[in-house]
């Protein structure tokens, strides 16, 4: 490993690698992080300074907020505990919908991955529902399940199901034929093949599907609460925009983004634990 890395990096041929390389790489290594963090800080600072630099007309000020205001609002929401009830409502819709999607998507994906007939029969429905924005079903879902938790669960479920289902299916189908032959040559039965080859092979696909599903589930909570709910963070945000409380809207956006980041982080941890056998973490696709 260390050999190939030394060859790969651009070490000046004449100088010994261990003298030159580290010096050169200090800025090299922190440059991406520094520039990345810098641009975010710059954006926040400029945004914060706008009211000090230009005079904002009264009408526009109604729609304007600054990062410090948003941070203050966030702080009060958590300090007073006002955030917990709507956050709990949103989180339960998110959790139930995502959980249901996993419970249904995993076994169905394995089944479709292993059976050609089922695959062919399910394919038109998966294609259609995956391409269609699930928001189109929202009025129908609200009609059936009423305003509240279950409409939200269904919308989250429809959104999160397909990434999990499709990725599980791809992972199962892509199991290496050679490896299946290897374990069969040692007398493996169908269950051994699944245990030793198919499931370990599908795991990274499933984790990637889970990550996509989380993004879609958060989106699902937001839209379901905009149009089909009476409580939750999304409802809070719609009401706030009606009252021109722009800072509350941004605070809600940040909380949703945070929820999405925390969940993705958890999945990342899971992935790191499960993929020790893989060569280097690959760049995100």
């Amino acid at each position, binding site marked *: 490993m260390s050999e190939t890395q030394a060859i790969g990096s651009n070490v000046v041929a004449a100088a010994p690698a261990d003298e030159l390389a580290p010096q050169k790489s200090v800025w090299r290594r922190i440059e991406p992080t520094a520039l990345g963090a810098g641009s975010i800080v710059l954006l926040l600072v400029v945004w914060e300074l706008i009211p000090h630099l230009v005079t904002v007309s009264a009408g526009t000020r109604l729609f304007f907020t600054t990062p410090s205001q948003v941070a203050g609002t966030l702080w009060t929401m958590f300090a007073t505990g006002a955030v917990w009830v709507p956050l709990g409502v949103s989180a339960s819709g998110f959790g139930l919908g995502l959980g249901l999607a996993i419970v249904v998507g995993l076994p169905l994906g394995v089944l479709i991955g292993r059976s050609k007939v089922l695959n062919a029969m399910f394919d038109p429905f998966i294609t259609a529902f995956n391409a269609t924005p699930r928001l189109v079903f929202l009025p129908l879902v609200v009609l059936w399940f009423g305003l509240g938790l279950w409409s939200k669960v269904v919308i989250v479920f429809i959104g999160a199901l397909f990434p999990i289902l499709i990725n599980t299916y791809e992972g199962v189908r892509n199991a290496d034929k050679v490896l299946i*032959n290897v374990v069969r040559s*040692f*007398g493996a039965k169908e269950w051994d093949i699944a245990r030793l080859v198919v499931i370990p092979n599908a795991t990274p696909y499933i984790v990637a599907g889970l990550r996509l599903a989380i993004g879609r589930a958060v989106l699902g909570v937001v839209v379901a609460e905009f149009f089909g709910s009476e409580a939750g963070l999304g409802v809070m945000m719609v009401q706030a925009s009606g009252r021109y409380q722009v800072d509350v809207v941004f605070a809600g956006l940040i909380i949703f983004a945070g929820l999405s980041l925390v969940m993705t982080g958890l999945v990342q941890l899971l992935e790191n634990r499960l993929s020790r056998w893989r060569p280097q973490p690959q760049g995100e696709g």
Partner: protein
Amino acid sequence: MAAYIEARNVNLTFRPPNRAPVRALYGFDIDVREGELLSIVGPSGCGKSTFLNILLGLIKPDSGQISMRGKAISGPGPDRAMVFQEFGLLPWRTVQSNIELGLELKGVPAETRHKVSRELIEMVGLGGFEAHYPHELSGGMKQRVGLARALATDPDVLLMDEPFAALDAQTRDLMQVELLRIWNQARKTMLFVTHQIDEAIYLSDRVLVMTKRPGHAKKIFDIALPRPRDYEMRVTPEFNELKLEIWHALKDEITV
């Protein structure tokens, strides 16, 4: 008396969905003697690998008889093991755990498994790499693992499907020497499929040349070169003589 492994008039046609069928083997015959190292050479797609898979019990032929020690082969069994061209290591398992795969499927207790795998790891020269994952190994090391895995279940016959084809030329030469050493030590019957005439002569007691598809036996050559063989032997007149003869048998079958 029947040969150790015997194949008579084996026929197989592949029928891939949505495509025209392909005849892979047609009237294939072979006799393998116990303890010998027999190489099979032939043009690409002549069905030589397919035949190994039939011997292994993974593919059933359409017709013909295949037996080992007089008993028909009907599926995979612990008396045969394969070394695969693409190594076929489970990427999520360590070297040791890959070697123990066959024993695990046989239900051998963990302690015995570890003992066997430790011995084999020494034998193929992988000491210190027990806990490595396949992606951390070079091609030659990967195939050592493949070899050790095949030997772990102590089979009577080792089937080798172009095992060194994915290796660079130098590693390949070294692995051939290694293989002869292991063959001397373990004394298994070995069937070795390869594209390289050099490799076939250097390793084998006999070399079988196959025709192009649909494949069957064309000619068999006895390699009467003395053992133990060393690298210098490859430049002797006897070696080159054999090489030329086999090349003549093979060249009419090759179409570019």
